[in-house]
């Protein structure tokens, strides 16, 4: 196994969870039913991402991804994009709230450099600007 030689981008967390707003970023190909699906026909992968609003009805979310079996997510999107679960944790006071922006992208690409230098910082910028997220939960493979 080869470890990444890049330094670990560790950002300290110096807040209380009960006062913190949490965002979800998933590589699982999650998007709104009325958003453009990811392009699974492109063998190089789709470098785009979709912004998911905080008040989303989870039944309006779906998965476009052809590199894993997403039948379980089709049945309950929370297994991969736990937005209703976050709401539960907010209701019980474990976290402060659900962030204003969440992100879905298709975590498969042959264009690693473009993903690392383009898509990833663009997603980070989206979270940084206007999501009010104090921390991010990442899900994927």
């Amino acid at each position, binding site marked *: 196994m080869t*470890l990444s030689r890049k330094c670990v981008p560790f*950002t300290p967390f110096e807040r209380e969870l009960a006062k913190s707003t949490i965002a979800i970023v998933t590589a699982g190909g999650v998007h709104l039913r009325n958003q453009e699906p990811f392009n699974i026909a492109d063998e190089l992968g789709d470098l785009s991402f979709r912004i998911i609003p905080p008040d989303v009805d989870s039944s309006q979310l779906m998965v476009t991804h052809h590199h894993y079996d997403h039948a379980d997510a089709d*049945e*309950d999107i929370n297994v991969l994009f736990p937005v209703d679960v976050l709401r539960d944790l907010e209701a019980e006071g474990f*976290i402060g709230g659900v962030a204003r922006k969440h992100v879905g992208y298709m975590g498969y690409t042959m264009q690693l450099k473009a993903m690392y230098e383009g898509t990833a910082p663009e997603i980070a*910028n989206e979270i940084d600007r206007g999501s009010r997220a*104090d*921390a991010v*939960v990442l899900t*994927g493979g």
Partner: protein
Amino acid sequence: MKGIPTVLITVSPEVSAQMRPPRALYPKGFKVGNSVGRPGMRELQRTVLRDALGLLLENTRPGEVVTREYRDYGEQYAPPRVRDGK
């Protein structure tokens, strides 16, 4: 940009460890596509998400994946492996 604290929930711990994530939880034996549990298992989903968020407060070692077991999940699956030859 000063950075955003993250915690990864991975079901491919060996693959994820290669990228040395700042904080990561592997719910042992969960299959790909089941990051926080199976469909409809809301209590388990809450437990896994609480544990993942809890890593933000723990003195974890950046770059390492923390493994936890969840008996309620039921049948376990072998995670994807990194291909040999590297």
